[in-house]
């Protein structure tokens, strides 16, 4: 059975484009223009994945409300924010509400499709028994590539999809400097330098919540970042 994706986007052209692209990848698409119609439909049936814009018609933060309501209905449902708003504050708020990823509209359709696929893959992996082969261990860090789960000293560190891919790219080759472009490629995203910086900052903070002494991601000024063990 086809996976059903809900797209909540008030811009019809964009909505149609996303719908067309994703349905080409074999998903069933339900598109909604505002929060009310989307919520009515979700109350009847939950989609398998939701892509939500933050500002919806006359509700400047309608997407956040929708995300909160949706998360209340289901704890596992993958939610992606896809928005024109690129401020860090929005990203932090969105991720804190339980979204799995926060994308700006700069993202290309193939990248979007890759993310959607990755999230579905994770859902599937979570339902299967553990597959140790996919687990990368770097000292205190262990990364499950399939389930996209990260632990530090055994404690889970909740990362968004983009953050996960960044950590994954860094930790796979410890000591190697990854510049911003490499990190963007790994994360299937086009971001500007500042956004990479804030992603790194957020990742560090999340690890530090688990271990205040965390210092594994090092900045190499002017070049990029590297993972040190």
């Amino acid at each position, binding site marked *: 059975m086809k996976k059903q994706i809900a797209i909540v986007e008030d811009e019809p052209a964009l909505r149609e484009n*996303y719908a067309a*692209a994703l349905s080409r990848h074999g998903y069933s698409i339900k598109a909604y223009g505002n929060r009310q119609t989307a919520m009515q439909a979700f109350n009847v049936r939950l989609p398998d994945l939701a892509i939500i814009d933050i500002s919806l018609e006359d509700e400047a933060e309608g997407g956040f409300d929708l995300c909160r309501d949706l998360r209340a209905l289901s704890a596992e449902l993958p939610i992606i924010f896809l928005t*024109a708003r690129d401020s860090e504050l929005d990203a932090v708020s969105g991720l804190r509400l339980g979204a799995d990823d926060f994308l700006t509209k700069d993202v290309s359709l193939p990248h979007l499709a890759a993310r959607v696929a990755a999230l579905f893959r994770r859902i599937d992996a979570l339902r299967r028994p553990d597959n140790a082969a996919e687990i990368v261990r770097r000292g205190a860090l262990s990364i499950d590539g399939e389930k996209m789960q990260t632990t530090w000293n055994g404690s889970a560190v909740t990362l968004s999809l983009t953050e996960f891919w960044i950590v994954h790219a860094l930790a796979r080759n410890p000591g190697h400097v990854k510049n911003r472009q490499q990190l963007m490629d790994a994360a299937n995203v086009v971001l500007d330098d500042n956004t990479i910086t*804030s992603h790194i900052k957020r990742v560090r903070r999340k690890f530090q919540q688990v271990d205040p002494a965390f210092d594994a991601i090092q*900045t190499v000024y002017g070049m990029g970042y590297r993972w040190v063990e």
Partner: protein
Amino acid sequence: VSIRLQLLIVALTTLVLPWAGCQYARELESALRNSQEQSLLAGAGIIANALSAQPQRVFHDSGDSQAFAAAAGDLYVYPLVTQPLLDGYREDWDIPADPAPLPTASKYRARLQAGSTERFLYLYLEVDDAHFMPEPHDVNPGKDRFDRVNLTLQGPAGPTSYFFGTTAPGLIAAQSVAKGDDGADQVVTEPRIQAFWLQTAAGYHLEIRIPLSFVGQRLWIEALDGRGGGQAGFAPDSPRGGRLFFATAGLNALLQTYIREGTRATVVDANALKLGTAGNIVTQNADEAEPIWYRYFLGVDTSEMPLLVSSPDRLSGDSIREALKGTAHAQWVLSGSRHALLLTAAAPIVIDGQLHGAVLLEQAADQLLALRDRALTRLFNLTLIATASAVIIMFAFATWISVRIGRLRAAADLAVGNDGKIRLSMPESSSADEIGALSRGFERLLARLNEHTQYLRTLGGKLSHELRTPLTIVRSSLDNLESEGLRGDQLRYITRAREGTQRLQSILSALGAAARVEESIKQSERASFDLRDLVNSAVAAYRDGFPGARFLLELPENPCFALGAPDLLVQLLDKLVENAVDFCPPGGAITVRLERAEASYLLQVANDGPLIPEALTGRLFESLFEQRQGKDDKPHFGLGLYIVRLVAEFHGGTAVAANREDGSGVVFSIALPLI
């Protein structure tokens, strides 16, 4: 011309006050002068009337009105105040006039003067006859030759002739020739007529004293040279013999009763000869030690007033001339060597419809002057004080205004700082007057300017935000189109369209960069880090990133720990280096230099590129300020250096652009505080 000066000039118009005061004082003086004239004229008229009622006390011979003629031998008899000593000198006569010369046909010269007391007529004769010829004994006046003086008096009983001569100078008596008992001529001495013969080197003086009872209305006097050198004077039988014009005895005392203090009264006969005088002109301010300076331009112009030439025997001047024609007249004159201002008023003395003489009153103007001076001094002092205070107050006021405007101007100059920030508050804005209104106007203007600047500053971010959705529509449509499977040429166009959207994307990204940096600055946390390490590794990255550029790196020996956001500083360095790479000519070097100065770290990025115009050095770091022609395709919105400034200021530092002193390039310097 400053406001202060302008107001000062305006204030000087208050000088019209003293001027008006002067005009007033002049009018006052004029009125005073008029009233003084009138009062003096009235006084003269009263005296004239009083005198005309008692002519016998004024005139000797009220019948003789023939004009006085000195040339015809007419003799004015000066009134003598004291009885002179009969000694041949006339100094004790105390008459300011010199003796009048007697007519002569030869070189034999003689001079004569007459004076009288109440009892005697005095004659003083000066003869230029150096060679004394004495009178012989047993003189025969008809034959003997000696220096002699003949005197003929027209007495009540007809003329009587006397002669003077002496064997030796000294006190002598008059002699006359009389018929003796024998019928022969006989020389008789008249002891009542006495004289003193004084011989001098130049001639002789003869001072004669004659009792008034001997004297009639005329006398003839002549001096004869004993050596036959000639004669001077009038022969006894001459028809032109001199008439005597006397001052009236007792008239002085009479006049004295009529006059006031400070006034002089003089009575003249119809010939203007003085008959009597009384009183003194009192010059009150005779000891004017300090002349009041402003009198010179305030006082009545006296330079055109007639100068009264006084002679001891007669009066002159317009007043007396008019009075002797029959009309009372007053006039201001100058008199004496000091040119003292005098008021003269003359009134005719008319008896039985016939003019007999005149009374002249003279009064010094000093009193008037004193009065005017007092008024003027007060007026002047008051108006001067008023003017001075007006000028001072005006000046102070102008200074105050000037200072306030200056403050406003200074604030206006600084309202838009070098950093592009606008200070919204102006001084004086709480004042209620026009300057306050101007200040508030400035504030409104600045507020609008600030709004506009804010709008411009956020325009980039807003644009980038608003354009993002349509751009995304284009790009997602292209994505979709591409995945439909395209022919070769369609793919080519799609690729071009995609390149276009990418450029648009980078433009939008650049436009929003400043806003994003501002935001990330807000959220930045400060950490301690090694600035030297940061610069070192960043420059290593630039060497990879800009293979075409040559980098020189100068670092201090010791680590440079700083407190701040290293990510932001890397961005700052990025912008400076990008800028330097853009401007550095091929073959030029980009020098990155870190130095530990006294109070700060100095981070410099220099390049050999073109110099910055002096006027722009302060503006380079403003938002959206871009003055260059890009040599690449990258969009430039003048945000790079603005970001540099934001980051520098976030660290409590400063960003400065300057040309190298030798003109070889440009240096951007960032000063960052030490920990």
